[in-house]
């Protein structure tokens, strides 16, 4: 399905076409936000805010731009909303803080994923925040480097280097501990 055509339809006045965009991206956007908050209610609030901002801004989306990506555009709104959320909470922006918050129960970790999340978070905490976010965007969110670059404002090459270095670092420094955990099926 050509999402750019849907956007043009929206821009030409068929506002209800947004329903299709919503169906296409609601799960992905929610997941993207969830991986940065690990809290269902917060993720729902930010998801809602993201889509309301999207309907206000979609008329400005330039479909003529080469490689125009609605997915990256939506995720960028979501990314900024997550940052805004934590700024409002007067917390320093970053997953480090989110992880600390989660473990200190200032926010309730999603109960269904609690055990699994705790192990994952303990693991991820060992990686530099900025690198971890980009690694998650590539491996969990399945975003292309072009899309990650668009969302984070970094170059594609830089994003690739970060993923590469992070994986190598994991391999050289903490592989043993992690693999012991993984092989024991703790996750």
């Amino acid at each position, binding site marked *: 399905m050509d999402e*750019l055509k849907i956007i043009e339809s929206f821009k030409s006045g068929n*506002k209800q076409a947004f329903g299709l965009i919503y*169906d296409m991206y609601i*799960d992905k956007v929610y997941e993207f936000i969830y991986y940065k908050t690990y809290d269902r209610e917060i993720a*729902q609030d930010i998801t809602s805010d993201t889509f309301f901002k999207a309907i206000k801004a979609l008329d*400005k989306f330039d*479909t003529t731009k080469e490689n125009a990506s609605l997915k990256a555009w939506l995720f960028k709104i979501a990314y900024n909303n997550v940052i805004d959320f934590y700024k409002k909470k007067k917390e320093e922006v970053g997953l480090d803080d989110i992880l600390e918050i989660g473990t200190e129960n200032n926010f309730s970790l999603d109960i269904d*994923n609690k055990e699994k999340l705790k192990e994952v978070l303990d693991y991820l905490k060992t990686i530099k925040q900025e690198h971890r976010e980009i690694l998650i965007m590539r491996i969990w969110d399945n975003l292309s480097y072009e899309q990650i670059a668009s969302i984070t404002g970094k170059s594609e090459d830089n994003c*690739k280097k970060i993923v590469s270095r992070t994986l190598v670092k994991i391999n050289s420094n903490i592989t043993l501990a992690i693999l012991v955990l993984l092989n024991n099926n703790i996750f």
Partner: protein
Amino acid sequence: MKREVNEILQELYELDPNLVEKEAELTKIISKMIKVKPEVTLDKQFRTELKQQILSELEKQESGFSIKNLLGYVGIFASGAIALALIINIFPNIISKPVDTIIDKQTGNLNLAFNTSIEKLDSKRAFGDLNIGELEEGIAGVGGGGVMGMGGDVMFEGSSKMTVLPDPDYKPKIYVYNYKEVGELPEISENMYVYKKDNKPLKISDSDIKKIFNTDIIDLDKFKNLGISNLNLYEDAKNGYNINLDLQVGTLNVYRNYNMWPQRDYMQEKRLSISDVPSDEKIISIAKSFIEKYSINLDIYGNLVVDDIWRKQYENSDNKDDYYIPTIINVISQLVLDDIGVYETYGNPYGLNTTVDINDMQVNSIGSIEKINLVGSEYPLITDKDEILNQAKKGTYFQNPRIYGETKENFEEIQVEIGNPKLVYLRKYTYKEGKSEEYFVPGLMFEVLTPSNNEKGIYPGEYVTVPLVKDFIESENSFISEPYIY
């Protein structure tokens, strides 16, 4: 998972081929990371409710209504012991009563009369210079500008300049419109009028408001010079509608009160195919029945016509199976002035829009029903064919980005063929001292023949429109010289 891991690895090898030596370890780490990805399931009820809220908000935006407006009035109407000794006559007055909105002293009714008037002045250039003004620069930037800082797009540097962000792979498209002559241009009378919309707000006085609203929750008498900007009414009945009246602008919109309609599970709804779309006649008959039922006056509007822009896009699409068939179809009753149809500058007919939901074959909304008061005056027009065509070659105003300090080599030039034009009225704005004024001005509308919209990512628009009023041409050209690149 294997394909996913390989894809990630190949990307990394492109960056550093030496990583191949660590393939086994990297594969293990990436695989495990994928494996420990938390399971995330979005709550079904949340998903459905959010979608309904968003579609409802979009519907309200289309009809000039917003949640913020509604909340403002909920605050007033929900405030306890309010005695509303108020009878509001809306629809009948749209056609019958030739007075502005005031409380009728004898009946106590609030009369909301949408009287239409068109006055033609003898004096020429009665509205002074028609200059698009400084503000439209900003508006143009909205149409042609960037999206939230995404790389390579055209962005404003300030209020009057744009620049290109440093993305070497991105080449903005510039459209060059070539006229294909297949006949004569329509005859343009120099005596055509420029019409200015001269709607006065439907004002309800401070004293009348204080008589109407009698509440013990706050002392309204302490507020000075109260006014009412919007009235929001709802129909508390099965398949009911909301009515929004904007007293400042003089518009009325009707749209579904979704709380009173069957809730739909959008996730389960089948996508429409072209064969599901009823005939234009059927859609028009639904719109017409609604208009007649509520006695909406169409005297200044033309015949009901189905808006078929989506169908043109469908016909032009490479893969018709993938094309999204809209569930809401718009039926336009175009405003007609001096037997000439009025259009938006981007080519859509301007007038009353009645939308029909083809899922349940009922009217979704109608709006904006306008209080139209027009004053006409003659202005000098361009009638010279070469001058008109020279203007048409630039495309519709701001079709192309305005870019400073760049050369044509940095742009992809798209040749577009346009055919014979028709004479129209165009809806235009001027901006003076921070206020906008709305005009309907004589113009020509050229149909874009080739390429089709969205063909290979090319979007030249469906039409090129040229206002014929010299004031507009001169002020627009003062912003666009040579013709796109500064």
